[in-house]
Structure formats: C-alpha cells, structure tokens
C-alpha cells in the first residue's frame, strides 16, 4: 500500500512537468509576437522590448524554462507586469473566496446529484427519471453565467432574499458567508450536478442488473437497503472518479461565476489579468489550478480501496 502511494505520487511529477512545460511554451508557440500582444496596441517599440526582456523571451527557451521551473519550486512565480507585485502574493490574497466557493459547490452538488441519480436509476423510465435526465441535459446546455444571471435576477433582484453580489469572509460568520455564496454555488454547481447525476444513474443502472442485487432482493432486503447499501457502494468507484474529473468544470466555471457575482477570487484575478494581458499572473493561476486538479485526482485514486475490497495495491 505504502509503496503504491509513493509510486502514484511520483507518477504525478511527469504530468506536472508537462503541464509546466506546456503553460510555459505557450509564450513561444502562440501565433504572432506575444510580447507585442501583451504590450497592447498603443505600445512603443521600447515597451515591447521591455516586456520581451521581462518575460525572458530574448533568451534561449531551455535556459529560460529551467530558470522558471527552479523559481517556481522555490515559490516564486514571477512578478505581475501590471502591478509589479509577486504573483504568489496576488494569488494568496485571492485564494480564500475561490476555495470557499468551490468547496461549497462540491458539497452541495454531491449531496444533491448522487441521490438524484440513484432515484432516477431506481425509477428508470418514470417521470422522475425523465425529469432528472431532462435537468441533466439542461445543466450541460445552459452556460454557468446564464444560470447565474437568472438566479440573481429572481432571488436577489425580484424576491430580494439574497444579496446580488459580493463576498463576506468566513471569519465574519457562517451565515453571511453562506448568504453571499449560495447563489454562485448553485449556478456553478449546475453542470457539475448534471455530470454526477448522469454518471450515478448510469452506473447504478448497471449495478442494479447484477446478480448480487437479485440475491439481495431474494433475501428480503428493502428498497432503501438495496439502493444505498448493496448498489451504491458498488457504484462508488466510477462516481467518485467523475467527481474528481468534474473539478475541471468547477475551476473553469469559477472564473465566470466570480465575474457575475463580483467575488474577489482567483477567477476575478484571471479575468482582470486577461484584460490587462498580464501573462505571468495567468500562468501562475493556470499552474496552480492544474496542480490542485492533479492532486485531487491523485487523492481520489488512493481512496478507491475504501470502496472496493478487490482493489489492492
């Protein structure tokens, strides 16, 4: 087991290296002259040269890449072109709202989507099943910012139940924090719920056809016990896997959700950085999110043993 964990952790290093290489080499493979693009249309040739030097584009690729990786390993992600602040500082300032939003969305989505999928599979073909599947297609089709605006319009503007925008820190109390985050979390959770509900339903349908479910029925087990004890535990591995993979959707969606609800998180930082063509910041955020994503999926891999005794390392 321990050896397996070590092996899996080591296996993520090449993946991270490729992520880093890819994010870094975008500067070199992007069509056109990135330095000119970043400098903007009104820039003088001197401005472009200054940016070229600050990005290190005037030096050989490999030298610059090695230097960059070395700096990142020491916790230095470079300096923002626009604010001249270290990228790590900027990220630190913005990380709490994003983390709050993503964790709340994750909990909300999993606790809604899994029972939804289970019930849909149980009542396959019924109106409940159709409603869940219909909701899932809608969840995939309506973009997160549209959901955000509709929710904000109904619950904040028309009904005035919740604040329209903004963020309250967790230290200032759970309920103010929740009040500000609940609408963004629901908006962001839409696609994620759709994804998890669908895979839960699909896996459950397959599991419910297995012989051991028939055995459980023949023993006189009740419906709840069959669904949640006998079936769901067998369906857990694919469901948990998709929960991990779906985090990519949450990360992408957070960028937009934070804009709609004016939450001062990493997503907003990214959007602001794009408008200012502040590439070091974008680089830092992309790298951080990818790192978190890889880490979460590694963790989920290691959790498989909890659900299935057949998986041994």
């Amino acid at each position, binding site marked *: 087991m321990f050896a397996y964990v070590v092996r899996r952790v080591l296996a993520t290093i090449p993946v991270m290296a490729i992520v880093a290489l890819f994010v870094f080499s975008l500067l070199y493979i992007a069509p056109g002259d990135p330095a000119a693009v970043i400098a903007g249309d009104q820039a003088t040739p001197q401005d472009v040269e200054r940016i070229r030097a600050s990005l290190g584009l005037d030096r050989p690729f490999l030298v610059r890449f090695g230097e960059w990786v070395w700096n990142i390993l020491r916790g230095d992600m470079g300096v923002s072109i626009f604010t001249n602040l270290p990228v790590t500082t900027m990220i630190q300032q913005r990380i709490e709202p994003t983390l709050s939003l993503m964790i709340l969305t994750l909990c909300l989505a999993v606790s809604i989507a899994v029972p939804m999928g289970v019930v849909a599979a149980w009542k396959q073909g019924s109106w409940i099943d159709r409603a869940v599947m219909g909701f899932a297609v809608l969840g995939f089709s309506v973009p997160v910012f549209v959901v955000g605006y509709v929710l904000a319009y109904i619950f904040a503007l028309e009904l005035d139940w919740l604040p329209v925008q903004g963020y309250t820190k967790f230290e200032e109390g759970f309920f103010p924090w929740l009040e500000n985050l609940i609408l963004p979390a629901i908006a962001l959770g839409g696609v994620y719920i759709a994804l998890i509900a669908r895979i839960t339903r699909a896996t459950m349908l397959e599991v419910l056809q297995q*012989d051991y479910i*028939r055995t*459980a029925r*023949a*023993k006189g087990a009740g419906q709840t016990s069959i669904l949640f004890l*006998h079936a769901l535990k067998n369906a857990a591995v694919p469901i948990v896997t998709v929960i991990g993979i779906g985090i990519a959707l949450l990360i992408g969606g957070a960028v937009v959700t934070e804009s709609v609800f004016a939450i001062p998180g990493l997503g907003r930082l990214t959007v602001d950085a794009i408008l200012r063509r502040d590439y070091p910041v974008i680089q830092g955020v992309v790298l951080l999110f990818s790192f978190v994503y890889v880490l979460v999926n590694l963790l989920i891999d290691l959790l498989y043993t909890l*659900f*299935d*005794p057949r998986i041994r390392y």
Partner: protein
Amino acid sequence: MAEPLLVVENLQTHFRTPDGINRAVDGVSFHVNAGETVAIVGESGCGKSVTSMSILRLIPEPPGKIAGSIRFQGRDLLKLSEPEMRSIRGNDISMIFQEPMTSLNPVLNIGRQIGETLRLHQGLSAREAEAKAVEMLKLVGIPEPGRRVREYPHQLSGGMRQRVMIAIALACNPKLLIADEPTTALDVTIQAQILELMRDLKRTVGAAIVLITHDLGVVAEVAERVVVMYAGKKVEEAPVVELFNTPRHPYTQGLLGSMPKLGSSLTGTETRLAEIPGLVPSLKQKIPGCVFASRCPHATDFCVKVAPALEPKAPGHVAACHYALKEGAIAA
C-alpha cells in the same frame, strides 16, 4: 389431505419488449408438497428460471407482468403487498442462484451477507448475526469459519461461494428452497459435493426444494417428481422413476435420448447421441397448436392447429400430447 405447501396455477409471466410481448411463461401449473423435491427441467429459454423468479416475485414489473396464482401455505403470493412479500423472501422461501461468482455482493464481507437475512427476519443484532453466520458457515462445511466470515467473495473459490449462498438461503430455516441451476457453473467434482450438501441439509432442515436444472443427471439423483417445460409451457409431469422409464411426451423422449449413457462406447454398441432437430420457437409469436409441433418427429397438421391439453396418461403422470399413449393403451 391438506393443501400442498406451494400451488402454482396457470402462472403467466410476460415481458414487454420493443418488438412484441415475450410470453416467457404461459400457463404453468404445478404443486410442491412439504419436504418434497420437485425438479423443473427444460432447455435454456424454456421459462424455468422465470418460473422460479416469479414465485418470489423477483421479476421487475414493468416490463414484466405476472398473472395466475401462486399459493404458498394457502396465501396467494401475487396478492400480497411488497412489504409482506419481503417478509417471506429469504425467510419462508429462499433461493440459490446459478452463478456463485456473481451472486454475492463483492464489496460486503461474507458474514455481513449471511447476517443480513438474520437481521432482517429474526431481528438479531450485528454481533449475534455474525455469530450465527459463523455457525452457518460451519454447517455448510467451510473450514475456518471464524476467519472466512470476515473475508470478501473474491477471496473464495466458486464451490465455496456456492456454499456461502446455501448458508444465506438456509439461515432462516425456510420451508421452501428454490435452487436455480445450483451446480451448473461448478466443476464436476464440486457439483457432486454441493448436491451431497443440499441432500444432507434437506434432511436436517426439512425444507421442500424446487430444483431448476437442464441436467437430467442431477434430476435423477435428487428429485422425487419432475416437471418438464418447453417454450413457456409444462409439457409433462411425472414421478422421477416413471418419467425416466416411460416418458410420454416426444420432447421428454428427445431430452432423455440426448443424454449420454455411461459405458455405451465401451460396450461397443456405438449408439449416436440423439438430438432434437430445430430451434425453440420465438415466444413473441402466439402459437395456436402444440408448442413442440415444429420440432416433433410425430407432428401432424392436427398438432399444428390444436394445442393439446395436459391429460393424465398414468397415475401421477400427465403429458400434453395428442398422440402420447395412455397407460391402458399400452397394455392393450
């Protein structure tokens, strides 16, 4: 005489499919007395498994639909509510399935799976249930039951798993045990052991058994009475010795003829294994005449038009064939 333990009358189990209704079981009647072993035989797809699943109402409705009546100890199971049915499953009537490899839940340990029945029907606590599970494992002949009880199905062999299935089925001392091809998926040596075990346990527990199988060898060894099914219908029923000696229905004769006989190749009388030509008819079409007519060597136009009723051909022996001779006719 009191009513038999189980009386199945005109059982029909149909399924809705996109291209028509599948009449998997279409008007089957039989009974099982307390403590008796009745075998239901037939080729795969003849409806014998569906019949057994229908008794416990394990057929999903929809797309399935069960009609007729299934009286167990005088109560019609088809009229019971789902909770009432649940209190019978695994308690009064229990079932063993064909595939021991897939019939146990892979993520729950053995003790928990045996104990579940006890906790459901006898209200035992988790600890009591585990203790009883160890006892049951010992009863079905599993060595080191105290250790095995904590193990998972993938750690056991096929024969061991079928023993566990039997332990689950017998945990609550059922009055009726339905065994659906209990030995088919096992090695021949293991098959014999499992049959032996079932016979022993039947003696100690005193349960009646409905044995579903296509293996006439198994039937000859354990059954007292045999029901032969073909294309969703019962075509013949007789005490086991009578059936093997004087089969009346051409289908049964075909089945027995396709059984290899021990030593036939050694004695030099090189008799070919008879086989029944043709295929089982589709159950999605209604068949007006005899269901076996399309494959029967003796079939006439009349057989194709008029379905034969089950007629008594000898004491305790019925067959559905216009041409099968009756006891008196043979004598004459």
